[in-house]
């Protein structure tokens, strides 16, 4: 897939919840093909501590409007600067990067898309793509409390929505892997993105039920295009770059 380095304009930047930013970026030119699970790398100029680009998953694509959306959790200086962008500001992005999730699966399959924190970002784009292929996805989203569960309306519009919170303020109490839906059903395919311990628990569940499972990793990156070998994951095929061989890996490839 051809990669592009383009300047986008901020069309909108909203705060779905404190600490998160939903930013809509528009290009003057039409967008190239992109697949769910792919990411962009954003240049954050102006601060010596945010020297490198920052990788973010593609949350949503609106090809007709030449726009894409990112869902960003503020964790440090780079994400804070991006979250502070105003409509009209320009953003330098390299995209689309990485491999993407498997989406050519049988219609009417039962699929689970589960994530937590900013890890839910790629699951919306993925859910929409699966929906177009005649699959009604089940989203299972987790957070510490209700304030961490964002974009619920957007997910609900695409598939079935379940959630968990650690404090029980929304959905079932506990972690995603403790949700009752996992007790009643076996899924034909499971996708997950979020904190490592969560993905490891989901991978263990998938192995128990024999469901194929893909995870999206967030190893720290320098180049994002396979040139520096900084972002490697220790896989069954040796060290592989998360930015080119991933970010999506089948759990069969992983050592955890």
């Amino acid at each position: 897939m051809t990669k592009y380095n383009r300047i986008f304009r901020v069309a909108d930047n909203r705060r779905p919840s404190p600490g998160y930013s939903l930013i809509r970026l528009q290009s003057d030119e039409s967008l190239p093909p992109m697949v769910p699970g792919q990411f962009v790398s954003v240049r954050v100029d102006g601060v010596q501590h945010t020297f490198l680009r920052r990788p973010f998953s593609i949350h949503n694509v609106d090809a007709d409007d030449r726009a894409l959306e990112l869902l960003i959790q503020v964790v440090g200086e780079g994400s804070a600067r991006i979250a502070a962008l105003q409509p009209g500001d320009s953003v330098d992005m390299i995209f689309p990067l990485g491999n993407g999730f498997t989406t050519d699966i049988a219609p009417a399959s039962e699929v689970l898309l589960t994530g937590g924190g900013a890890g839910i970002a790629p699951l919306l784009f993925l859910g929409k793509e699966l929906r177009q292929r005649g699959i009604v996805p089940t989203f299972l989203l987790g957070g510490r409390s209700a304030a961490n569960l964002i974009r619920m309306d957007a997910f609900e519009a695409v598939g079935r929505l379940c959630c968990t919170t650690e404090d029980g303020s929304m959905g079932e109490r506990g972690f995603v892997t403790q949700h009752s839906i996992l007790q009643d059903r076996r899924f034909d395919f499971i996708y997950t993105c979020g904190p490592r311990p969560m993905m490891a628990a989901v991978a263990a569940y998938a192995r128990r039920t024999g469901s194929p499972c893909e995870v999206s990793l967030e190893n720290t990156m320098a180049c994002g295009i396979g040139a520096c070998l900084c972002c490697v994951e220790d896989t069954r095929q040796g060290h592989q770059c998360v930015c080119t061989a991933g970010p999506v890996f089948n759990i069969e490839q992983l050592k955890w």
Partner: protein
Amino acid sequence: MVDLTVKIGALTLKNPVMTASGTFGYGPEYADFFDVAQLGGIIVKGTTADAREGNPYPRMAETPSGMLNAVGLQNKGVDWFCSHIYPSIKDIDTNIIVNVSGSTVEKYVECAAKIAALDAVPAIELNISCPNVKEGGMAFGVTAKGAFEVVEAVRKVYPKTLIVKLSPNVTDIASIARAVEYAGADAVSLINTVLGMAVDAERQRPVLSTVTGGLSGPCIKPIALRMVWQTAKAVRIPVIGMGGIASAADAVEFMLAGATAVEIGTANFIDPAVSAKVITGLSDYAGRHGIAQICELTGALRV
């Protein structure tokens, strides 16, 4: 029209701008962003006699105006390079230069000899910053004796242009450069990364799996300029400068300090087309300053 060509040993570069080893893959990784054949040369990833898995993750830490890496020379070995990578890059119309690394003198020699057989590779860049496993892991390039030994041995099996890349982690770069020149190198390039370290205060742990790593990017530019200046005064062979170059002005600074050509490393991560911009910028600079040949800049610093 400004003449941008420069000479390094038997090589003619169409312009003084090359990309630094380990930051540009093998070249095709950047082909979506600009025509890489525009470059004066591409120094491909560090290649070793045997395959290496490199160091465990995490291998990278961002630091103020720079980054630390501890990739550890991950590569599939010289045989894989010759059979699988060389065929796909040999027709790129620029100088393809292989960065050769090793853990013993014998391994350097083995790797260099195999690369010598590749018609479309006119030069190697010998990375002597690697630890010598027979000498307790001390880098070859930190003593004049170690540097001399490895360069002399490789010179015997490598007839084409031999560039030796120097480590900045030394007290007297000039003496190392002279030893390398005396051993038969056609050029020296510098600097490799500066030994550094990053600590995660919250977790009270080192950021890198290897604790220490190599610092690169704009933060090392003043060190690199100083070392290029000292080296250029000490040797007669051409000096290739690098360390934090991110613009044409940076490249000019290195040339004024004594570099014949430059390499761009970490800056490729931030702007993948930066090298093309530096080439254009050099042309503009020469035009503005009434310079007919870019090589006039080399060592032209007025002190």
